[in-house]
Each structure stands twice: as C-alpha cells, then as structure tokens.
C-alpha cells in the first residue's frame, strides 16, 4: 500500500473544501428569507443540480446513452428507485451490445 505525499495533500484539500461546502449551507440557513422568485429558485435546486451533474454522460456521450436515459426516465415515472436503475443499466447494456459500441 503506497501513499504519495502529494496525493495525500490533494485528498486532504479536497476533503477540506467539501466539508466547508457541507457546513456553510447549514450555517447560513437561518439568514435566508425566501419568498417569490427566490423561493422558486431555491425549490429548483435539487433537480437543477442533479441534472447538471449527469448531463454530459446523458446528452454528450453517444446516442446509446441518450436513448438509455430516455428509457430510464420512462421507468422513473412509475417505478421505484432500484427498478429504475436496473432498467437503465439493462437498457445501456442491450443498446451497446446491439450496436457493437
């Protein structure tokens, strides 16, 4: 098991900024007054953030990934989380196998 000093410093810096992001939201919460547009923006945070994280792999990788994502969305509209993931993974495996990619 090797541990490179530069790698360790990088990991600790990543951990530091991540904990800072986790704690700071918690610390500023009581100062937020939400109404109207601000409140709507705040309510949009989860969907906006989760979408942004996966957009490259869903929209900018290949048509197979985009098609599998469409199948996953259909599944997500009526099935529980685990079934949704299973169908999504199954869809990408089938599409890649069928198109030899």
């Amino acid at each position, binding site marked *: *098991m*090797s*541990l490179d000093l*530069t*790698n360790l*410093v*990088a*990991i*600790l*810096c*990543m951990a530091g900024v*991540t*904990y800072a*992001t*986790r*704690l*700071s*939201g*918690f610390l*500023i*919460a*009581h100062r*937020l007054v*939400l*109404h*109207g*547009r601000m*409140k*709507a923006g*705040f*309510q*949009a*945070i*989860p*969907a*906006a*953030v*989760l*979408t*942004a*994280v*996966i*957009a*490259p*792999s*869903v*929209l*900018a990788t290949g048509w197979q*990934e985009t098609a599998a*994502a469409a199948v*996953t*969305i259909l599944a*997500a509209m009526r099935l529980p*989380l*685990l079934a*949704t*993931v299973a169908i*999504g*993974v199954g869809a*990408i495996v089938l599409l890649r196998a069928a198109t030899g990619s």
Partner: protein
Amino acid sequence: MSSLATEARAGLRDIAPAAIAAIPIGALFGALAAAKGLSPLEVSLMSLFVFAGGAQFAAVEIWRFPAPIAVLTFSTLLINARHVLMGASLAPKTGALRPWQKALGFAVMADENWAMMERRAQRHTLTPAYVMAMSFVFWLNWQFWTLVGALAGTFLSDPRMVGADFAFSALFIGLIAGFWKGRATGVTVAASGVAAAVTYHLAGAPWHVAAGALAGIGVACLMADPDEDASADAAALAPRAAPVGEVRS
C-alpha cells in the same frame, strides 16, 4: 419496539435502493482510480474524507502525477458547491438534532441521503436515529465498495460491458423524478441539462455543473410568480415549511 429502532429502520429502508445502486458505482470508481495509478489506500482515504461521488469521479479524470493540488481542489469545490444550497435547505428541518449530531450528519451529506432526508422531512420530523442510521450506512457502503473496486480494479476487464458507468446517471434520473413538481421542474431540468451539456462541450468538466445548476435555478426564478405567497414569508422560515421537492408517491 422503541421509536429509536423504528426510526433507524425507516432510515435504512429509505436509503437501501440508493445504497444498492451505489455498489456498481463505488466499485467502478475504485477500479478507475486504481487504473489511473492511485493505490487502494489513497482510494480509501479519498472515499473516507471526501465522500462525494461526482467530485471523486471528476478528480480521477483530472488526476496526474504529481497531483495537481490546486486544480483538484478547485474542481472539487465547484462540483460540491451545491452542498451549500442543499445544506441551507435541509438545516431548518434538523431541529430535533443536537449540534454534534448535525455536525456529524452534515459531514456525510451526499446527494442520495440528502434527497431522502428532504423527502422524509415533508411528512415526518427528522430524528437523530433516522439521520445517523441512513447516513452512516450509506457512508460505510461507499467505503466498502470503492475499496473492493480498487483492489479488484486490475481484474475488471471493461466496466462498460456491464453498464456500470451508466448506473450513476440512472440513479440520478430516479432521484430527479422524486423531486418532480410538474412543468416548473420540467423547465428547470431542460435548462440545466442543455446548459450543462453545452458548457461541457465548450469548456469541459467541471464547469458544466455550475453552469447547468445556475441555468436551471435562474429559469425557475424567472418563471415564478414574484408575488406568490409573499405573505407567507414567516412560514417559509419556520422549520419544515419550505420543502424543496414534492413527494410523488
């Protein structure tokens, strides 16, 4: 049965699907990191202390030797900036937790356990047993499977063959569906997805996260009725009165 056990059990039940979905994702992360040249010990240290899937994948993508510390830290900050908003949204719903429980619980807040806590808070009070059970089992689960992936990394021929790389996307699509609130969410998702994909194309990772998030939030702000429940300002501040998402079930 004590309420403690009931609450812990409810937490475990709620996080179970995400924890199972995290198995291939964690193993994939460990394998990719090992393939990049990180040791299993380094992979575990990152999972232990960073514990943020999206940022960890991006870091492995960026990693060089020697490690570009500034770039890695900045990328992590950019991708995890969403935690500020997530934490601010969840904080008012954690009134039943002691300060040390909040500090500990927030240290292991990730998209999945946060999403489940937000959903839980719409109908129940968040209890320490619920929060701790779900969050730490989810955290331990990530530790175990990323290490397994790192150790097995060299034996895994091609993760794409079993679709493991797509499990992350599928999991997030399922989580987004849990926050669906009709047209407003649809416009938010469309704006965020297009902005993120275009930014990824033009500027690359990790800029797409900030660009997509801001576009989605901005569109939601513009579409909203500015006068909507202006009289409910006080209510918006009260604990559990400003749900971020809507329960679908």
